[in-house]
């Protein structure tokens, strides 16, 4: 390809590689990619690892992955946005995931989510202005036997009520 097509402002990958060289997490991610022999079909596994390391998938990170796996950036972005598990925006300090599976729903999960939304003035998928709390929903975490279930910072709590949820969140936000 003729170099004239790429203007310096456009060529973001150099800046990304520069930035990555000073961050240890990119090194760990690269080792993980190497474990998968930089195979393109390992993209989802790599994105999982990247999110685990960085908390969310920022543009530079996606560009880095696309460069290392030799995939067009549009493919990486397309995959990352297809799956709801991947977050492209930074999350708050704490996350509260309300399960909205059928069992939880018929047992009042909607009331839990409404309770939190009303109290903290955020909608599902949003983070509070002080960046303390991210409210998320799940489409069934398979804990139907103990419905309604809510996951607080990765820990599942059984048989929740709006009051119990607000009580728990209060301990995070003082």
């Amino acid at each position: 390809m003729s170099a004239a097509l790429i203007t310096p402002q456009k060529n973001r990958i150099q800046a990304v590689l520069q930035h990555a060289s000073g961050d240890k997490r990119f090194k760990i991610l690269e080792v993980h990619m190497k474990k998968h022999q930089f195979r393109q079909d390992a993209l989802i596994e790599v994105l999982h690892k990247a999110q685990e390391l960085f908390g969310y998938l920022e543009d530079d990170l996606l560009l880095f992955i696309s460069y290392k796996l030799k995939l067009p950036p549009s493919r990486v972005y397309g995959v990352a946005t297809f799956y709801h598990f991947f977050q492209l925006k930074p999350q708050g300090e704490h996350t509260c995931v309300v399960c909205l599976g059928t069992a939880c729903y018929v047992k009042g999960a909607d009331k839990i989510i409404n309770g939190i939304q009303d109290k903290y003035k955020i909608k599902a998928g949003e983070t509070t202005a002080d960046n303390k709390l991210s409210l998320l929903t799940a489409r069934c975490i398979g804990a139907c036997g103990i419905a309604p279930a809510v996951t607080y910072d990765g820990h599942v709590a059984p048989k929740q009520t709006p009051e119990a949820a607000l009580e728990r969140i209060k301990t995070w936000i003082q």
Partner: protein
Amino acid sequence: MAVKTLTIDGRPITAEEGATVLQAATEAGIKIPTLCHLEGVYDVGACRLCIVEITGTTKLLPACTTKVSEGMEVQTQTERLRNYRRMILELLFAERNHVCAVCVSNGHCELQTLAYSQGMEHIRYDYTFPKWNVDTTHRLFGMDHNRCVLCTRCVRACWHIEGAGTKNIAGRGATSKIITDLNQPWGDSDSCTECGKCVMACPTGALFQKGSTVGEMVHDRDKLEFIVTAREKKQWVAAD
């Protein structure tokens, strides 16, 4: 190559083994409506307009991806199919903001032509009026997401014919969107070769050449087929 015999709308037809029902029909001069199908790129069976009835199966199958078989009986124009096709078109018109009167492709739009040919009179569903933007950051081309039907022809042309992989789909469901690289303005794309194949591929006024005004945008789709045929049949060997 083995030959299969089948009937389409009662007419006996022969087709090469491995051909699709759509190819067989087209060759015989039978028109089946299509939208996501584009000569020159692989088929995805996504728009569902080319669905046909085949005796012996209860499922409606897309003509573009269904292979012919011996003794197959295909119906392409039943009242039921025409009704479904009209509904699919109505859903498309209600999904985004398709306003023909102010569209660059007015008069040259496949969606518009389909609506006429399938006898769509009005749209029974509530318009959703989503807010989509128009990307005019590219030097030569523009993308109006309001007119996009998500047929992915541009994506396939970009990957399959040009091999650049600039365009793709992001998100899912009704919020799916055609993107450039990392969902960035088209003008900032590193990978775009400015070849214009995506614009040639577009069935509506979603992708256009800058400077076109209402009704001026004519997509040159034959060019894509020409390139692909030449490549596949190795028609251009060397320019000596």
